[in-house]
C-alpha cells in the first residue's frame, strides 16, 4: 500500500483543554467578590410606606432626605431643620442639575413635616420628587380606615 503524499504527519488533538477552566472561574469569582461594594444606607431608621404605582427614579444622581416617625429630618447623615433643606438641596442641584430628590419618609411620619419639606423643595426649585416606597403586590389589603 502506497502512502499518500498528503498524509498527515501530525495529529492535532481535537479537544479543548479545560484544565485552566477552574482558574478562569475562580478568577471571575475573586474579581466579582473584590469589586462588589456593599452600599450601606446612611440615614434614619424608617419603615417605608407601601405602594403599587412605584417607579424607578432612573437617575444616576439622587439626593435623599430622610424623615423618621418623630418627624426628624436627616440629609447626608446629619439632622437638619426644615429651613436648612432648601440650601442643601439647592447646592446639590447646582452641582448636578436634574437631580431627583427621593423622600424616604416613615409610614407614620406626620404629614405636616413632609409638607414643609415639599415646600422647601419648591423653593429650591427641585423639579423631580420621588416618594420612596416599597413595592406592594396588588393583592395585599389596605389599612383599615376608622
Amino acid at each position: 500500500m502506497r502512502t499518500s503524499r498528503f498524509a498527515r504527519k501530525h495529529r492535532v488533538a481535537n479537544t479543548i483543554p479545560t484544565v485552566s477552566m477552574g482558574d478562569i472561574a475562580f478568577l471571575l469569582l475573586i474579581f466579582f467578590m473584590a469589586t462588589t461594594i456593599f452600599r450601606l444606607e446612611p440615614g434614619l431608621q424608617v419603615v417605608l410606606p407601601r405602594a403599587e404605582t412605584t417607579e424607578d427614579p432612573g437617575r444616576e444622581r439622587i439626593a435623599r432626605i430622610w424623615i423618621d416617625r418623630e418627624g426628624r429630618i436627616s440629609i447626608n447623615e446629619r439632622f437638619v431643620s426644615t429651613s436648612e433643606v432648601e440650601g442643601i438641596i439647592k447646592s446639590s442641584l447646582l452641582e448636578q442639575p436634574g437631580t431627583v430628590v427621593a423622600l424616604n419618609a416613615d409610614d407614620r411620619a406626620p404629614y405636616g413635616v413632609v409638607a414643609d419639606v415639599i415646600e422647601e423643595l419648591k423653593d429650591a426649585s427641585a423639579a423631580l420628587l420621588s416618594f420612596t416606597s416599597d413595592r406592594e403586590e396588588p393583592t395585599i389589603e389596605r389599612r383599615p380606615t376608622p
Partner: protein
Amino acid sequence: MSDLAFLLLVFFVVTTTFAVEEGIPLALSGRTQATTRVDVRDVLEIRALADGSVETDGKKITVSEVRPLVEQRLANNSDLIVLLATHRNAEYGLMIDLLDEVKLANCRRISLKTVE
C-alpha cells in the same frame, strides 16, 4: 473544581438582587409658575384627616373606595384634577395610600394641599 467554582458563580449571579429604590414620582411646580385657574367642576377634593379617615364631598369613604370613585369621575370628565388635601397631623402613609389609589385610577392631574 471548576464545576464547583462555576456553580458558586452562577448561584451568586442568580441570587444577587440590586437594591433599587423605587418611589412614586411627582413633578413639582416651581415657585415661579403663576397659579393656574381651574374650573371648580373639574376638581375632586379628597381629604385625609388627622384621625386617619378619608373624606370627599363631605362624606367619609374608605381608602379602597377612592380608586373606583376617581375612575368613575374620570370617565365623566377627562379634565379631572384630584386635589389631595392632607391634614398636618395625618400620617404620611395615609397620603401615600391615597396618592397610590389615585394613580392606580390613571389620574395624572394631581395636586397636593395641606390643611391645618
